[in-house]
């Protein structure tokens, strides 16, 4: 099956009079499948919105192609693309009622009046806003406006729905509720979603697949589990969750595994990923994948320098003998106590395969 949306070597350069040109996208290639909940994740300014605007037709690429179900759409204006957008600040039409807003796309498509009425009712029912058809957008709360913006975008049954940080203007509780809601709407409508966010938690909880972007490049594409557990480089490991970055040298390779020495008495076993004996490598190690134990012989040992209580767990800064420091996160005991205190001597346990070898 053809991908719903495909970007082939897309580049976008913004030229502004009096400023240096900005390379917002540099040779980006992506393939997004039908019915997928696909997320573009990256820090502010990495080019997420630009990619969305290229797919919507508000900008045109300086190089490369954008395909919609195999058709090159790069030359089509926005009104000729079966793609709709949920804008960050909703962009509801203030002079129209909720129902008129939702009907707008269908009216422009010159659908029969009866069909428009049905589609508007369905779309409003889907977002549980049937009762608000006669209101003006200014008479709705932020969360309700968000729902109307969504209904307006899906009423014409687009092939692809683009969502640019749609939850960022909502407060935390509402944002969390809307995550589940959006996921449900995607399942029920079967529309391909391309969702933009800079919030890693949002991306991990909602997406089928995530593309992590940085400075106009796609760093990694994969399912949430793969992105979290097997980041390909330091940027991804750092941006998604917390990581310890450890530099070391390969001392032994065997059966697809490698033993890496990061400190005199601190050896970590990981999958080899093409590394050879003597190579200098970098490892990413999640704080929750390290456990602390009694400082028994044979374990790398160190001292707890800081202990930060964060409710159900405690984050420890451990200085390992020989100089390096690691951050460790451990669940607290049933009574809620931290297991260790500042100044305690501890042993550090890292299971084989807990750390990731980073490329580059």
């Amino acid at each position, binding site marked *: 099956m053809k991908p719903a949306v495909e970007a082939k070597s897309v580049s976008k350069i913004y030229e502004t009079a009096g400023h240096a040109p900005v390379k917002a996208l540099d040779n980006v290639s992506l393939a997004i499948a039908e019915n997928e909940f696909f997320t573009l994740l990256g820090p502010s300014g990495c080019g997420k919105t630009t990619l969305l605007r290229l797919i919507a037709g*508000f900008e045109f690429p300086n190089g490369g192609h954008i395909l919609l179900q195999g058709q090159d759409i790069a030359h089509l204006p926005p009104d000729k693309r079966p793609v709709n957008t949920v804008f960050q600040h909703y*962009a509801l*039409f203030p002079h129209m009622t909720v129902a008129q807003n939702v009907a707008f796309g269908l009216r422009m498509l010159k659908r029969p009046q009866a069909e428009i009425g049905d589609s508007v009712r369905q779309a409003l029912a889907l977002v549980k806003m049937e009762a608000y058809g006669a209101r003006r957008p200014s008479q709705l709360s932020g969360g309700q406006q968000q729902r109307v913006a969504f209904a307006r975008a899906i009423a014409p049954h687009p092939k692809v729905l683009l969502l640019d940080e749609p939850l960022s203007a909502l407060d935390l509780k509402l944002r969390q509720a809307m995550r589940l809601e959006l996921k449900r709407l995607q399942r029920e409508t079967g529309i391909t979603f391309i969702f933009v966010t800079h919030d890693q938690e949002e991306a991990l909880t909602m997406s089928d697949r995530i593309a992590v972007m940085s400075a106009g490049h796609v760093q990694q594409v994969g399912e949430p589990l793969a992105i979290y557990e097997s980041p390909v480089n330091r940027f991804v490991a750092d941006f998604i969750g917390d990581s310890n970055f450890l530099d070391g040298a390969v001392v032994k390779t065997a059966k697809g595994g490698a033993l890496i020495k990061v400190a005199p008495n601190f050896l970590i076993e990981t999958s080899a990923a093409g590394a050879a004996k003597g190579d200098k490598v970098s490892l990413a190690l999640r704080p929750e994948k390290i456990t602390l134990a009694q400082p028994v012989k044979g374990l790398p040992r160190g001292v707890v320098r800081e202990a930060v209580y964060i409710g159900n767990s405690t984050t420890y800064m451990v200085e390992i003998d020989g100089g390096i420091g690691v951050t460790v996160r451990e669940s607290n005991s049933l009574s809620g106590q931290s297991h260790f205190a500042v100044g305690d001597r501890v042993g550090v346990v890292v299971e084989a395969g807990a750390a990731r070898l980073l490329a580059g």
Partner: protein
Amino acid sequence: MRSHVGQYPGLRIWAALFFVFLYAPMVVLISYSFNTNKLAMIWGGFSVRWYEKLFTTGGIADAAFNSLVVAVIATTVAVVIAIAAALVLVRQRPFGGAGISTALISMPLIVPEIVTAVATLMFFVIAKAAIGFDFGIGNIVLAHIVFCIPFAFMPIRARLSDMDGTMEQAARDLYATPWQAFRYVTLPILMPGVIAGAMLSFVISLDDFIITQMISGPGTTTLPVYIYSMIRNGITPEVNAASTILIAASTVLVTIYWYVSRPNAK
């Protein structure tokens, strides 16, 4: 301690004096337009006889009609041009000449009107001599269109700058052509600015004397020019009546302008 400069006692008197100087002459003028007595200084009782007389003597009705025609056409054309200019200057990608263009459009507001009037007169004299260009009242319409544009432009531009540009993108995204996006989204949201600009243009056109006086001739007299010519025979009750009509028309239009351009106008 006074918490606010507005609480100094002398200010009230100044404010009161200001209103007296501004409105007392108008109140007197309006009162005398309803005075039966021919002699302005003596009150002879209420009547509308000067209004009747005004409209039965041909000249003033013609002048009022000319004023109306000129104001309607000049306003309509000026508003269309102002909308187009605002769209280009506010909505297009920033281009080098945007700042200077905005300044040039607003320039007529600060050029002394007498200078504009002389320049306009010269333009028409030269145009007539060179290519026989003379449209009679059309000349006045043309001049009015030109000086109305900045007045129409200001509120329209302000409204458009306040309007979220993603509104139009949302319309395009929902399958509207550029024209439909303008017709169904931009224009309705712009409407308060358009009405305000139109009211302002209309009043400015209706009240203009200096420029119109320069280029008007027999058969192309507008109301202010006509009133001025009446004054040469002394301030008659008819002059008061004609002026009152002009005041009334302006007040209505300015009220509408004020109403639609309130900050919280939808």
